């Protein structure tokens, strides 16, 4: 089943910084469909955002930039260091960059929580306009549909 409009609207609300709307839409999503569609959309979104931020001239940047980015997300509030495990977060990004990191020991719920926060952080830093965010959402929807295959 391909990604639905509701799933796209839900993730877009998060990335646009509309937390309340995101929470409301998330509560309305069909749970079973979200397990594949929303999860694929999230994975495609993080993959795209990680590539935009950490691939330069076709190469992955130095690991220190990943360490610094994860720290920057965890610095954003007193509760953030508890929400994001830096080891998990760095490995999720390095895994997407094909830098040899394994994520097999991270349970799916924890992985999704980390992916959401990291994606929101990356998109927040890139300060996309409304239209740029729409283009981003279109792109990752296509990628996610391919993932679901």
């Amino acid at each position, binding site marked *: 089943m391909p990604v639905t409009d509701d799933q796209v609207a839900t993730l877009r609300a998060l990335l646009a910084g509309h937390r309340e709307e995101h929470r409301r839409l998330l509560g309305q999503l069909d749970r079973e469909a979200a397990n594949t569609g929303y999860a694929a959309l999230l994975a495609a979104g993080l993959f795209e955002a990680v590539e935009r931020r950490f691939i330069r001239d076709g190469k992955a940047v130095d690991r220190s930039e990943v*360490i610094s980015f994860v720290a920057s997300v965890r610095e954003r*509030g*007193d509760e953030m260091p*508890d929400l994001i*495990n830096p*080891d998990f977060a760095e490995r999720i990004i390095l895994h997407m960059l094909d830098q040899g990191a394994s994520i097999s020991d991270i349970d799916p719920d924890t992985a999704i929580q980390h992916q959401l926060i990291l994606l929101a952080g990356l998109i927040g830093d890139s300060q996309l306009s409304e239209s740029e965010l729409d283009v981003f959402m279109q792109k990752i929807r296509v990628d996610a549909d391919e993932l679901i295959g």
Partner: protein
Amino acid sequence: MDFSAVKVKEENILALRSFLLEGPEAWAPLQEEMQRDDETAAGYMSLLFGAFEVAARRRFAPTYTVGQIVRLVADLRMRLGEDADLINPLIAEDMLRRAVDAPPLKAGVPDDLTATLNAEVYILLYLIGEADFDRAGLEQFIEEVTAYTEQWLAARRSEAAALR
């Protein structure tokens, strides 16, 4: 390790001074001596612990945010480059939080003695490098560390006596 019978000796203070000036290599000749018995090792380890606590308190006093602790550990790991994994960030942040009496991390902090010692040593040397002491400043720091460690050991002795 039982610290209740430990006293800070002159040789421990000399070793700390060498460590702060030259880094962990200065302790290599002490390895054999530290393995003599637990009490000897505890003399050195307690002073190292005291130095970590005093350096951390100085760095983050009088006010701090947990974000600053996160950033310090990240900066240290970035500086270590390929050796970044020597420092477990949760263990390192937890130790700094304890040193400055910040609320502990709610996330599970791994129980790993080697990683704890690595964090203690590397953070201490990072903070000493940052402080850039002159000769008088270093001596003042060592005096403060010695007094702090003696107080800490006295508290351990009181705890041990209360249990008897």
